[in-house]
């Protein structure tokens, strides 16, 4: 009866510190009851409520692919005033936490088939895009999609997350990888430049293409004009929003933007939808 708010038990199998500042960690979670994993059917772009007993719950995007059926990945940034994120970061491997979800809508994977995919990500908001890339590049799926271009940027090389995977993807010839940083460092040999600028340089074709964009609000704001210039129509630009959430199921009211609830009607919106929402500020 109280299933709605009842988190399922998972164990932290592994944690990976993703950045130099050591405040972004990826948690590999395994359900105590494997049946629960099977019931936990999700798609790329969705999120779940992670809960630490005594600290509370926090909405976190799912970073693993739906095809990673052994585990779930969540990449969490710890904030000084974030009760749950701080609690999560202090947990050791083997600790038990709760997962409730999956919630929200997802990227239109079906509509993306037979199309060129342009993925633009910034900073730590790359998580659900990572889920998507893993999904698209999976042996079972790759052939269903045309060209895949990934543009990912962070402020500094130390802030790039999923570094080993980025390298793997760069080595593949069926994906065009562009990794950039706002500010380079001495041993950084890669690109330096803001995501919107690199996007204009790379200039992926908009023909038969869909763009997925996810990043901090300021990046979203400046990425939209170049995408439009490249010929992407607003309904072909897909993005994901973030707001403070509490219930995850469209009831508690705090992620309300216009008549939509980000947690339920989102977090994935097309740029067209977004422009019609008050308060979205993109």
């Amino acid at each position, binding site marked *: 009866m*109280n299933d709605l*708010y*009842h988190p399922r038990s998972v164990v932290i199998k592994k944690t990976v510190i993703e950045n130099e500042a050591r405040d972004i960690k990826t948690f590999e979670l395994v359900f105590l009851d494997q049946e629960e994993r099977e019931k936990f059917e999700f798609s790329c772009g969705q999120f779940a409520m992670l809960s630490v007993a005594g600290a509370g719950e926090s909405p976190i995007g799912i970073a693993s692919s739906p095809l990673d059926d052994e585990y779930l990945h969540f990449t969490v940034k710890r904030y000084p*005033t974030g009760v749950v994120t701080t609690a999560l970061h202090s947990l050791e491997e083997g600790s038990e936490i709760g997962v409730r979800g999956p919630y929200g809508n997802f990227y239109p994977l079906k509509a993306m088939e037979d199309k060129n995919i342009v993925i633009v990500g910034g900073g730590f908001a790359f998580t659900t895009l990572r889920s998507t890339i893993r999904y698209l590049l999976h042996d079972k799926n790759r052939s269903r999609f045309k060209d895949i271009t990934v543009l990912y940027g962070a402020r500094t090389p130390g802030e790039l997350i999923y570094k080993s995977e980025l390298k793997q993807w760069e080595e593949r010839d069926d994906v065009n990888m562009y990794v950039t940083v706002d500010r380079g460092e001495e041993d950084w040999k890669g690109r330096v430049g803001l995501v919107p600028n690199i996007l204009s340089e790379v200039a992926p074709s908009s023909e038969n293409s869909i763009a997925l964009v996810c990043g901090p609000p300021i990046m979203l704001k400046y990425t939209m004009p170049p995408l439009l210039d490249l010929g992407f129509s607003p309904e072909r630009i897909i993005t994901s929003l973030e707001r403070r959430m509490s219930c995850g199921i469209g009831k508690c009211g705090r992620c*309300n933007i216009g008549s939509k609830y980000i947690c339920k009607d989102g977090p994935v919106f097309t740029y067209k939808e977004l422009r019609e929402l008050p308060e979205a500020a993109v």
Partner: protein
Amino acid sequence: MRKGDRLKEKIIKKEQIGKWLEKLGKDYEIWAPVKKNGLVSFYPIQSAKEIYFDFLNSKKTPKDLFFPQSEVLLSFPKEEVGKEVKTILQKPRIIFAIRPCDAKSLALLDQVFDSEDYQDPYYVERREGILLVGLACTHPQQSCFCTSVGGGPFEKAHLDLVMADLGDGKYFVEALTQLGEGLMQRDDSLQDVQEKDREKLAKTKEEAEEKVKSKLVTKGLEKKLDKIFDSPLWDRVHQRCLGCGICTYLCSTCHCFALLDEKDKARVKRIRNWDSCMFPEFTVEASGHNPRISNRERMRQRVMHKFNYFVERYGETACVGCGRCIQSCPVNIDIREIIEEIRNE
């Protein structure tokens, strides 16, 4: 329900009410308006003597009997999970003398908490286990505007039974559901309705409706609001706002909440508390970023949610015109004025 079925109408004398409630009290826990510390609120009663019949409306809305301001949803360690939602109501309940506007607010909350895609177990159990005995409003206040938002002082919708004070020591009682009929039949001393009672009822109703002096045009308001999200109007209307939670916590339709954990010696409790969009903390994210930075944005959200977003989502205005926010606002922010300003914008 068969409309106009006169067998479902009875007359009860004021002095009989005590007896009737005593009979009902055997099977039901009765909650009724009681005056304590100068405030009228709904409390469980033992005798009809405790009831404060002459109330204009209760200070707090009876919404908290369905959706409490603070409620434990779960508790850990996990062996206790699942035991938590025991039967919430020990005994079926009657809310006696609920006002029609507050009954309507429950119908609005149903849209949120008892919809096709989501049934809140805590809310639904209470909703199913609590009967609503309405008391028609013979003294609407100056700040009432129920008739402008689809209600009325004698509105019968969403009630199981409705009573109306005919002013001559008699109450007109009408059963509106089978359960309501059951309540009525509990007492065979209820009298049959005479023609003059019916006339009296019509007259009282008319008088009451006349007393609702505030007339607001809410039709088309949602369309107007669509266009004025960035209007300077919001700079004006929020100016006085103190940013407190009175309007939201006394509102009969506000339903935002927060889930949070609390630890005590033995366990962790996951608690659901009411929250208010008027508080800065409502939207502040872990990063410290707050998308609604000032009272201006927060008040706009409150108005938009009631008169635009809710309408778009559920087809109705999330306001029943009870006027509580107007009465209790410490700086006299008056939603009627705001609506008027929006219309004139």
